C-alpha cells in the first residue's frame, strides 16, 4: 500500500532564522486495537507509531504516536530555517513499513 502524504510548508523560501510551518496529513486507519469486528474478534492494532522530520538530513522534530491519535493523522509543527535542502517527513507503521514525503526549502 503506497500512500502519498500531503505536506505543506507555509513558505518555500525563507530567510535564515525564519520559522517555517509544516502541515502534514497522511491517510491511515490508525486501528487502535480496541475495536471488535462483527463476530466479536478484536481487530489488531495497526498504527503509525513514529514520525520524524529532517531538514537537509538533520532531525528537527519527531514524535511517537499512540493509538489515541486520530485516523488519517495530522501533524503541524515549525522549524527554524538554517540551510536549504530537502524537508523529509517519515512515518513508520507498526508493520515496519514507511511512508515518506518530501518538500524543499530554500534559505536565503
Amino acid at each position: 500500500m503506497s500512500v502519498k502524504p500531503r505536506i505543506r510548508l507555509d513558505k518555500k523560501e525563507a530567510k535564515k532564522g525564519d520559522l517555517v510551518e509544516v502541515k502534514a496529513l497522511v491517510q491511515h486507519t490508525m486501528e487502535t486495537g480496541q475495536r471488535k469486528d462483527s463476530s466479536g474478534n478484536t481487530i489488531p492494532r495497526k498504527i503509525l507509531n513514529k514520525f520524524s522530520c529532517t531538514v537537509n538530513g538533520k532531525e528537527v522534530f519527531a514524535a511517537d504516536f499512540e493509538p489515541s491519535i486520530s485516523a488519517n493523522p495530522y501533524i503541524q509543527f515549525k522549524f527554524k530555517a538554517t540551510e536549504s535542502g530537502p524537508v523529509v517527513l517519515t512515518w513508520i507503521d507498526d508493520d515496519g513499513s514507511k511512508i515518506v514525503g518530501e518538500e524543499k526549502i530554500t534559505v536565503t
Partner: protein
Amino acid sequence: MDLNLNRRQALAAGAGAIAAVAFGGAAAQAQAQAKNDIQEVIDKFTGGKKAAERLVRLDLPEIAENGNTVPIGVSVESPMTEQSYVKDLLVVADGNPRAGVATFHFTPNSGVAEVSTRIRLNATQHITAIARMNDGSLAMGTKEVKVTIGGCGG
C-alpha cells in the same frame, strides 16, 4: 501535581458514583475507565519527579462533539536555544483506554516548541501535557475537554 491528581481522582470517583445512580451501567463504566495507566505513563516520563504547573499551554475545544478527531495544540514557553530548549513533550489523557497519546521530540532547530495534531477522546476527561527541558526540569499543563460522542470505537 499529586494534589491535582488526587482531586481529579476524587472528582472522577464522585462523578462515577453519581452517574451510577443516575444513569446506570454505561456512564459508570465510562468513569471507571478514568483509572487507566496514566500514573504509570507519567512516572515513566518524569522519573517520579514533580512538574511545575507553568509554561505549558494546551489549546483544546471546551466541548468536543466528535471524540474521533479532536484538534489539540500544545505550546511550551522556551527560548529554544542550544542552551535551553524543550526536549520532549508528553501528552496523556486520563479517560482513554490507554493514557498515552503522543510524545513529541523537539530540537533547538525546532525554533519554537509548538505542535498541533488531532486525537481520539473516549469520554469527557483531562488532557495533560508534560514538557521535559534539556536540563531535565519539567513543566506541565492540564485542560478538561467535554466529549459528546466518544471516539475509541468498539
